């Protein structure tokens, strides 16, 4: 039971943090360097999941992927089943829910890169694309790593959104945190204790690694070429 929930949780965390890496990099770059006047609007939107109760987010995602919404109908006609109460549905909700934890550290470290270095790169003939890969990304790497690990850890510990969107289906949508809830509901405190301890140890180990790496100066640790 625990093993099943744990594999599912890790699978979810890997998929979600990978998606957030792909989505977060361009979004963080845009937030760090765009001069659009309505940038603050996007910033506020990205940060929303930090303050919003998971139930609110979960509820709207559930409605959005349900059979009554155009997106839900489109997905159903494509795959033959609804997104709600599936693993894919969990991924959608978790990506939204962990978005700020990935994007904010990345955007902060990108915007702390000296603009003069970007100018220098362009003056040496580099395209914006090359400037990103050779200058912005290497210098912002600590923030990118932080964003990746935080979104991974945040997905591990997620509860409300999962329950709202995925329900509690062992093997399909039952994550470790939902399992603990289940076990407490069943008054099986010994099992709940084991599961909780496992999650606690896992999250603590992850964050220890993250902060341990960050303690050292950026370009001694990564040694990029």
């Amino acid at each position, binding site marked *: 039971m625990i093993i099943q929930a744990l594999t599912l949780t890790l699978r979810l965390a890997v998929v979600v943090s990978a998606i957030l890496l792909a989505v977060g990099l361009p979004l963080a770059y845009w937030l760090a360097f765009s001069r659009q006047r309505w940038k603050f609007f996007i910033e506020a939107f990205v940060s929303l999941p930090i303050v919003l109760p998971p139930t609110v987010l979960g509820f709207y995602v559930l409605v959005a992927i349900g059979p009554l919404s155009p997106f839900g109908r489109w997905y159903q006609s494509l795959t033959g089943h609804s997104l709600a109460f599936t693993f894919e549905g969990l991924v959608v909700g978790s990506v939204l829910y962990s978005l700020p934890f990935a994007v904010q550290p990345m955007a902060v470290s990108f915007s702390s890169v*000296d603009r003069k270095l970007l100018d220098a*790169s362009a*003056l*040496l003939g*580099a395209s914006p694309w090359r400037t990103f890969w050779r200058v912005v990304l290497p210098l912002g790497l600590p923030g990118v790593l932080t964003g990746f690990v935080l979104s991974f850890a945040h997905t591990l510990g997620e509860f409300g959104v999962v329950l709202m969107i995925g329900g509690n289906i062992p093997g399909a949508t039952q994550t470790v945190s939902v399992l603990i809830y289940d076990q407490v509901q069943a008054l099986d405190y010994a099992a709940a204790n084991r599961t909780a301890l496992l999650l606690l140890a896992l999250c603590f180990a992850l964050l220890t690694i993250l902060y341990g790496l960050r303690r050292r100066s950026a370009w001694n640790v990564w040694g990029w070429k």
Partner: protein
Amino acid sequence: MEMSASTPTLDRQLSVRLRKSFPSSGGASFTLEVSFAVSAGFTILFGASGAGKTLLLDCIAGLQTPDEGEIAIAKTVLFDSQSRRSVPPNRRSVGYLLQSLALFPHMTVAQNVEYGLAALKNSQREARCGEVLESFRIAALAQRRPGEISGGEQQRVALARALVTRPHVLLLDEPLTALDAATKARIVDDLRAWNKRHQIPILYVTHDREEVFAFADNVIVLEAGQVAAQGPPHNVLNRPQSESVAQLAGFENIFECAVHDSHPEQGTMTCRISGSALQIEVPLTRLDAARPLHVGIRAGDILLASVAPQGLSARNVLYGSISSVEQRDITVIAKVNCGAEFEVHLTPGARQSLHLEPGAKVWLVVKTYSCHVLQNGG
């Protein structure tokens, strides 16, 4: 892309005509409005801070967009407001050494220098990089990072990085200010040697007038966003008409004056130095007498006497007392208060024979033609 060294210099001419305004919240706005052309060689862009020097370089490099105008290297148009053409900075072939140097901290010296050569094959890139590292004497540093080398070495790396791409124009924004004179001169010598082969226009920004005398083929003096003077250094410096040119030409004494009286028959006019009762005779000029004038006097053009001089042709004999004496290298700098404070330069020998100490009474003698009348452009 590369032209041969025998190409006439006209083909490498950088021509600039532009206007850019910055509205400021205080109501006053700054406008840069310039028009000039420079050929291959060292052109010094001189001006006080805030004159718009860096903004001008930013416009040429494409980091800033002018409101209006035209920028071209030879026949290649980089910016033209009429046809709404603006080549992005990465396609302008303009080498620009930023004041902060902006070396990439996470790359070695060699990686920094090779950065602009992405289009070349590996072997070619290494050859070009090695060559430029040699000619700027930094080959030994190739595997170090910018944080591990000295300020002068960083300047050399930044220069090498800008030049290895063979730009068609080189812009230098006060690149050598932090360096001692000897290091500075060596770097400029290497840069000159490089430019003997490549013959491109080099626009060199500074507010240090010694650099003007040392390096310039041409000078452009920028004052409050406008070109105040332009030409070979001796032309610009011998006929100073504005305050920043005067500072450039080395007027240690600049006084604001009002015309008190003019004597057309004697070819002079009498001016009173603002804030004092002191009157001096200066050459008659056609400048607008209603506006305040400035009179510039070189510290080395003033004679110092310890007894009242007699029988002189000089019109200005001013009585005062020494407020301070200080020796710098082989120049003695005396400050003399005659109602207004004058700076006078003399030799250590003269100081000894005249017994010049603070408090001593002295006479200053200034020829009329050593008083240069200046008027501010703005």
